[in-house]
């Protein structure tokens, strides 16, 4: 039975990735292009400043893929494969959750597991380290930023699993409703504490050394030696739209996984008698 779940989960994931890609192609790509244009403009202004100051001008690195490939094929392949990966993890979680999380019917369970995946693998880490378009993020801190992001993902997964376990334990003493609320509260407290303890990206040492104390790596206005602004800071509207669309795309992906998997799982479970796992 687990093999049927895995195949269906990955299929649902591929479908979710495809829909999220179409959404990204329409809504996110224009914002990504604006961010890249901002980056090029800023780099040009920076080289003018460097030249005026007699500093060596940094050479442009060449990209192996054109923007057209990145913005159509690359993002498509990336989103669909990401969907497959999430569908695989979803199927494993669903298989393990069956019969272990109280009286939940197959369809609602699919939606709940998808909600859990959306929260633990994306939204909770996003609250601490939100998605950024190109032009935001310093080259020197990519190791630390990757490590912190993956740590946040790992913590979210552990806390979610712990929360589900706690909820099951509490059901012995409370109603299912209250047990769920208490478990959710415990998760929120633990996650809040972890987010308070982890550093903001702007406070990483390399950033403080170079730019001073800031909360994020979002580019501030570029100034010449006299302190005049020669290039504006990163456009706030582009950042806001990009992040909103990022959340929307992940919500779309996970909702598709849950909704597409639900009837398939129900059919698999109805066909096979309980306990006769294949």
């Amino acid at each position, binding site marked *: 039975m687990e093999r049927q779940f895995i195949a269906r989960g990955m299929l649902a994931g591929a479908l979710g990735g495809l829909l999220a890609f179409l959404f990204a192609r329409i809504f996110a790509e224009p914002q990504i292009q604006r961010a890249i244009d901002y980056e090029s403009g800023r780099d040009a202004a920076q080289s003018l400043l460097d030249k005026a100051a007699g500093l060596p001008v940094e050479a442009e690195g060449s990209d192996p893929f054109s923007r057209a490939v990145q*913005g159509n094929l690359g993002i498509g392949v990336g989103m669909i494969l990401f969907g497959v990966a999430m569908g695989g993890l979803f199927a494993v979680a669903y298989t393990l959750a069956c019969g272990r999380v109280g009286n939940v*019917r197959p369809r609602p369970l699919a939606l709940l597991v998808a909600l859990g995946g959306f929260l633990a693998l994306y939204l909770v880490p996003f609250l601490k380290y939100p998605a950024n378009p190109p032009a935001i993020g310093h080259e020197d801190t990519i190791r630390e930023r990757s490590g912190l992001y993956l740590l946040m993902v790992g913590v979210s997964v552990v806390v979610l699993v712990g929360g589900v376990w706690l909820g099951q334990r509490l059901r012995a003493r409370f109603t299912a409703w209250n047990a769920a609320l208490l478990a959710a509260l415990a998760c929120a407290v633990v996650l809040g504490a972890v987010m308070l303890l982890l550093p903001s990206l702007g406070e990483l040492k390399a950033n403080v050394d170079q730019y001073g104390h800031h909360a994020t790596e979002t580019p501030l206005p570029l100034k010449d030696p006299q302190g005049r602004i020669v290039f504006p800071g990163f456009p706030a509207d582009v950042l806001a739209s990009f992040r909103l669309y990022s959340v929307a795309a992940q919500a779309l992906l996970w909702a598709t996984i849950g909704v597409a998997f639900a009837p398939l799982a129900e059919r698999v*479970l109805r066909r096979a*008698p309980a306990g006769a796992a294949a």
Partner: protein
Amino acid sequence: MTTPSLPAERTTPVVLGGARAALWLFGTVLFSVALYYFIGVDQGATSVFGDNMYVHEFVHDARHFLGFPCH
């Protein structure tokens, strides 16, 4: 478990069947995490296929949009 075919409308049964099932689940997690790594992390902070940027540059927009740190 000898319950004859629980009606699927009511509740979900435990469906795990032994070591083979565990192996399938483990393999799936491994495969999925590897995919997640190549789309989200490889050739940024760490690199499996040497010091080039092909994977990173190809899925670049997806990486940003899916929430991973980049650049």
